[in-house]
C-alpha cells in the first residue's frame, strides 16, 4: 500500500471522525433551546434531508430525461402514504424506477 494513499486516508478520516463526534462530545448547541442557535439546529435536520434529496435527484433530470424519476417518486409517495414505512417506500421506489427504465422512460 502506498504511503500517500494511507496518509491521505488517515488525515481525512481523522477529520471526519472529529466532525461527527467532537460536537457531540463537547455538547455544542446544548442549552440553546430558545435562542437563535437552538432554532438553527432544529431546522438543520429538515434542511439537510431536503437538500440531500434534491442533490441526489438532480442527476436524474440533469440529462434531460424529465420523466425518468416520475415512477420511482410516485411509488415512494404512494407506499409511504399506504404503509408509513421508510423501508418499504424506499424499496418500492427503486423497483418502480427500474421498471420505468425497462419500459424506456
Amino acid at each position, binding site marked *: *500500500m*502506498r504511503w500517500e*494513499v*494511507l*496518509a*491521505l*486516508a*488517515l*488525515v*481525512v*478520516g481523522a*477529520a*471526519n471522525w472529529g*466532525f*461527527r463526534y*467532537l*460536537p*457531540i*462530545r463537547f455538547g*455544542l*448547541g446544548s442549552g440553546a433551546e430558545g435562542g*437563535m442557535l*437552538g*432554532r*438553527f*439546529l*432544529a*431546522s*438543520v*435536520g*429538515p*434542511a*439537510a*434531508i*431536503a*437538500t*440531500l*434529496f*434534491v*442533490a*441526489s*435527484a*438532480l442527476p*436524474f433530470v440533469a440529462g434531460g430525461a424529465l420523466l425518468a*424519476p416520475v415512477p*420511482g*417518486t410516485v411509488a*415512494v*409517495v404512494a407506499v409511504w402514504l399506504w404503509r408509513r414505512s*421508510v*423501508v418499504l*417506500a*424506499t424499496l418500492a*421506489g*427503486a*423497483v418502480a*424506477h*427500474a421498471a420505468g*427504465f*425497462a419500459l424506456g422512460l
Partner: protein
Amino acid sequence: METRQETFAAGLVTALPIGLGYFPIAFAFGVAATGAGLSGWEAAALSVIIYAGASQFLALALLTSGAALPVAAFTLIAMNLRHVLYGPALMKAAGAGAGKRHAWLWAWGLTDEVFGAALGEIARGRRFSEAGMFGLGLLPYAAWVSGTVAGALAGGGALAGWPVLEAGLAFLLPALFLALLLSILTRPQVPVIVVAGLACVAGTLAVSSTAGILGGMLAGALAGVMRRARA
C-alpha cells in the same frame, strides 16, 4: 404514535434501505478505484478509514491527478465540513438526557443518510438510544466496506450486463431521502424544505454539487430561524 425506545435490532431494520443503497455505490467506488490504479487494499482502506462517499470519489481524482497531499487533504476535509452540524442537531432532537457515553464510536457512522434516518425515527416517536445508533450505523458501514471490496474484486463493467438492476440500485438513495423527508414532514417545516431545495439547485448550477449541498442546508436552516423569529 410510537413511544418505544430505539433498539439495536430496530436500528438494523431502519438501516436496511441505507445498506441497500450504499452497497452498489461502494461497488462502483471499488470498480473506479482499481480502474484508477489503486490496489484492492488501498480501495478498501479508503472506505474503512474515510467512510464518506463523495469525498472518496474525489480522492480518486486527486490521487490520480497528482495533487499535493496537503491540497488533497484540505479539499476532502472541506467537503465533509457539513457533518459538524449533524451531531448537535441529532442530540437536540433526542432531547435532554440523551446518552452520549459511547458516541466516540457510534458517531463514526453518522453519515448523511444515517443522520436523516435517526431524525426520522425520533420524529416517528421512537426514543433515542445509543444501542439504536449502533444498529443504525453498523449495517451501512458494513455495506460500504463490503461493497468496495466486491467492486475492487469484480473490476470494471461488472454491472454493465444488468442495466435494469443498475438503474434500480441507482435510485435507492433519492428514494430513501424522499421517504425520510416524508417521515419528518410537518406544515411548519415546509418553508425550510422549499428554501433548502431551491438553494441546493442554485448552488449546484452556479458553483458545484458540494456548494449546493452546503448552501442548501445553511439556507434552509436560516429560513427556519427567520420563520420562527417572526412567529
